[in-house]
Structure formats: structure tokens, C-alpha cells
């Protein structure tokens, strides 16, 4: 087991290097120093040079890249250029807000989708199954944006059930603002998840061990919950695990729309103002999270299925 885990962990290193290289190439080499944005268009050459010098843009690319790697390794990305606050503080503040938006949504979406998929695969090929799947495909075909705009209009403007916009940090107060975005996220995600889980369950139902269970006289309900659901846990866990990085990034669109000051809106604001430290920190952290959750997922897989380790 351990050699496998170590191998997987080592595999993460070149990927992290690749991501940092991509971000560096994009920002430092292709985009270049944003000194004009910060010093002002009418600035003297001297002032521009001063800015470049302060943030290391005057050094050669390899040196700049090494400096960036140092930031990544020490997790110290310096201060935001826009508001002068340490990037680390900004991220840890934003992450909580993003997670309280995305975690309930992920949990409820998965739960709802698994239930619907169980029902659909139980009645596969029949009316109930068809209805669920048709609604799922119809729902998937409507743009995310339309759900946001229309539901915000209907449920917060026409029928003032929810707050239209804004956020309050209190542990209780925040929910009046988060409810609607969470509902929207569930509606958007549930179609995809239901389709995915249904195909997983249908495949499992076709396997020999399920036939055997029936042959031994197990009830249909017992087969669905014990034999099918239990064996389908691996794909379910995988699907949930790969969503974990998105918990922290939050939903760019929803945060932007509903004025929730999480990671997503922070990133969009940073891109808008060429705030390099924030952009660099967020892109690396998000990718790191993604890599860690894939590795964890692989390890979990290897624990469950010993054949994986040998590859």
C-alpha cells in the first residue's frame, strides 16, 4: 500500500510544477508587468521602472519564476496590490463564505440525484424512468445564466421570499442570502448527477452478482439498497471527491451575481484589476486542492480495490 501512496504523491510534484509554469507563462511572460495599470497611464518611465523593480519584473524570467516557486512553497504570496492586505488573509476569509455556499449545495445535489437515480434505475425503461430522464436533459439544456436571472427575478423580486443581493457574515444571518444561490446550484447540478448515477446503477444492476442475489430470493428493495448502492459507492465517492476543489472556488457566477464576497468574486475582481498576487495565489491553491483530492481519491480507490495498486 505505502509504495503506491508515495508514488501517487510524487506524481503530484510535476503537475504542481506544470501549473505554476502555466500561470507564470501566462501572467509574467505573455501578459507582462501591469505597471501601467497601477502607476497610471501618464506615469514617467522612472515610476514604471520603480514598480517593476519593487515586484521583481526587472529580473530575468528564470529568476522571476524561481521567486514565484518560493512563494508557492512558503505559501506566502505577499500583499494584494489593490488593497494592500496579505493575500493569505483574504483567501482564508473568502473560503468560509464560498464553502457555506457550495457545501450544502453539493450535499443536497448528490443526495437528491442519488435518490432520483435509484428510482429511475429501479423503474428503468418504464414511464417513471423516462420522465425523470427527460426532465434531467431538459433541465441540463437551459443555460446556468437563465436559471440565475429568472429565479432571482421570480423568487427575490416578484415574490420577495429571498434576498436579492448581498451578504452578512453572521453564522445565522448569512443563510437568508445563501438560500437562493444554493437552490439554483442544486437545480443546475441535479440533472447531470442524476444521469451519471443512473448509468452507474444500471450498469451495476446488469452484473452477475445482482442476478445471483435475485436468484437467492432477495427482495427487489434489498437488492437495490444493499447490492447495487453499496457497489456503486466507488463512482459516487469519486464524483463527490472531484467536486471538492470547487467547494473552495465557490461558484464564480453565483458569487458574482448575488454579491457574496467569496473566492469566486475575489478572483474575478483580481482579474479585473490585474491584481497579480491574488491571481497567482488563487490559481495555484485551487489546482493544488484539485491535485490533492485526485490523489486522495486514488488512494481510497486502492484501499477499496486491491487490483489498482498493482498497476
Amino acid at each position: 500500500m505505502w509504495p503506491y501512496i508515495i508514488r501517487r504523491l510524487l506524481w503530484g510534484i510535476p503537475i504542481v510544477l506544470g501549473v505554476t509554469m502555466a500561470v507564470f507563462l501566462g501572467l509574467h511572460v505573455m501578459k507582462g508587468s501591469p505597471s501601467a495599470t497601477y502607476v497610471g497611464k501618464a506615469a514617467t518611465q522612472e515610476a514604471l521602472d520603480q514598480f517593476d523593480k519593487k515586484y521583481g519584473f526587472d529580473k530575468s524570467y528564470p529568476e522571476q519564476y524561481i521567486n514565484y516557486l518560493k512563494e508557492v512553497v512558503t505559501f506566502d504570496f505577499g500583499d494584494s496590490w489593490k488593497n494592500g492586505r496579505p493575500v493569505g488573509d483574504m483567501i482564508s476569509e473568502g473560503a468560509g463564505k464560498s464553502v457555506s455556499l457550495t457545501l450544502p449545495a453539493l450535499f443536497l445535489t448528490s443526495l437528491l440525484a442519488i435518490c432520483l437515480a435509484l428510482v429511475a434505475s429501479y423503474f428503468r425503461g418504464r414511464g417513471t424512468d423516462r420522465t425523470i430522464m427527460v426532465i434531467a436533459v431538459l433541465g441540463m439544456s437551459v443555460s446556468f445564466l437563465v436559471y440565475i436571472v429568472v429565479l432571482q427575478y421570480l423568487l427575490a423580486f416578484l415574490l420577495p421570499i429571498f434576498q436579492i443581493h448581498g451578504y452578512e457574515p453572521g453564522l445565522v444571518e448569512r443563510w437568508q442570502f445563501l438560500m437562493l444561490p444554493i437552490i439554483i446550484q442544486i437545480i443546475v447540478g441535479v440533472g447531470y448527477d442524476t444521469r451519471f448515477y443512473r448509468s452507474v446503477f444500471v450498469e451495476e444492476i446488469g452484473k452477475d452478482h445482482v442476478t445471483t442475489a435475485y436468484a437467492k430470493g432477495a427482495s427487489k428493495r434489498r437488492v437495490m439498497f444493499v447490492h447495487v448502492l453499496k457497489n456503486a459507492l466507488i463512482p459516487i465517492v469519486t464524483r463527490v471527491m472531484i467536486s471538492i476543489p470547487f467547494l473552495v472556488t465557490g461558484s464564480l457566477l453565483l458569487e458574482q451575481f448575488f454579491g457574496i464576497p467569496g473566492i469566486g468574486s475575489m478572483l474575478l475582481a483580481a482579474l479585473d484589476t490585474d491584481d497579480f498576487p491574488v491571481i497567482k495565489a488563487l490559481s495555484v491553491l485551487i489546482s493544488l486542492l484539485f491535485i490533492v483530492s485526485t490523489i486522495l481519491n486514488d488512494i481510497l480507490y486502492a484501499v477499496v480495490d486491491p487490483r489498482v495498486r498493482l498497476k
Partner: protein
Amino acid sequence: MSEFWNSRPVRKIRRDKWALACLIIIICYVLVAIAVRFGIIGNAFEERIGELHLSPSMESWKHWLGTDRLGRSIFARMLYSAKIAIGVGLVSAVVGSVVGGILGAIAGYFGKRVDDFIVWLYSTVQSIPYLLLLIMLTYIAGKGIMGLYVAFIATSWVGPCRMVRGEVIKLREAEYIQSAKAMGYGDWRIIFRHVVPNTMHIVLVYFALLFVAAIKSEVIISFLGLGVQGEPSWGIMIKASQAELINGFYWQIGAATFAMFVLVLSFNIFADALQDALDPKSL
């Protein structure tokens, strides 16, 4: 040609009325996009055709869906947006499936160092969340349609590459590949004549998936103001209608939503049918 029309997957699609209907709808959208491209329709998207926020009327085809806040024809803007959508969809799908398919085949066939490098490349791209990567790329490449193309080209090859690679690793050991090798054929000839054609069922499905993914993402990026500039797109129409909705003007969002919904739905259904028809397991 008759061999193609009578092949099993094509026969299966031809029997599927829904899939055929969806294919016809998709072709209609492509025709509209071509017509817009050559200036036959939809070019009057900037022209003021009457009062602001006119309701839909039968006065002329331009008035069919009313006017927006500047008195421009919503119908013309909706048609024009089809060009943008089909354009990004096509670029993303063609480049993604060709580049991804070839890279995947090379990685799977040669293995070793080449494989390690290609796997590293797509793992890197993959480990940055899709929407974040698209937004970052449009930021770096600059706002506008070119930035969108760059973003889609840089990301779309990953999915087909990963799947084709997996398939080719299995194919590599197949007897017909082994005999091609035994007959002394060169590696490239084997890849392009024997390996790639046998991964077409994956590439074709990805073609449809990439097309629809690009259309949906374009709308979101344009909505965020990072996509097309100075031209209408369904995303820009939805953004414009956000403010109108409060005053009860729903034609613009309705038009953009409907146009996009029909196209995306057709693609979703067609991709499903394609997947069923091409699935080697169902032989």
C-alpha cells in the same frame, strides 16, 4: 458511400427519429450561422428599427421579437448570436477532437517517455478548474472572440486525448496491430491507418460534447464581459435583459434562452444517440 449509409451506427441513428430531428435542427443552426457569416441575414443587429422596448409584432421580420433598450431588433441579434455560438462550438470541437485524438493515439501507441509527457500535459491542464482556466486564458489572450478561441483550443483537447489514450493502450495489444507491425509497417502508418480509425467512436462523441460545452461556456464568458465585444451573443443578450426584466420586458431573455435551449437540447439528445449507436459494447 453506400457502405457508410448502411453501417451499423448510421443505420441505428437513421432509425432514431428523435436523433434525426435533432440533427436537422443542428444543421438549421449551422445554415443560419453560415448565412450570417456571408451577410445574408442578421447583419442589421446595430440598426435602430423603431421605438425602445417594442413588443413583438408582425410589422416586419425584424419586429418579430420586439426591440431592445436601444430600439434594435431582437430577432436580428438572436440570429447573429447563432454565428458566434456555432463558430466557437466548431473551432472547439474540430481542434479538440483532432488534436486530442492524435495526441491520445500517439501517447497510447508509443508509451514510455512520450506517454509520460502527454499525460503530464493534460493532467496539468485538467488540474485547473475548467471555468477558471477559460477565464484566465481570455484574460491573458485579451478580451474578445480571439481570446475565446485561444481558451477553447487550449482546453478542448484534454477530454478526447485522455479517452483515446486509454483505448489505444488496449488496442496496442490487438492482433491486427501486432500483425501490422509484423508486416513491417511504419509506426505512423499504423497510427493513422489502423489505430486512429478504431478510436473514432470516442472522437465523434467528444466532438458533440465539446461543441455543446463550448456554446454553454461562451455564453457565460460573454456574460461576464470577457467574451465577444461589440457583437451580440446570447450571453450578452441575457446580460442586457437582466435590467429589463424588472420592467417586465422579457422578449430579449426569452429569445436568447429559447434559441440556446433548442440548440443545446438537440446536441444533448444527438450526443446521447451517437454514444448509443457507436458503443462497441452493444454489438
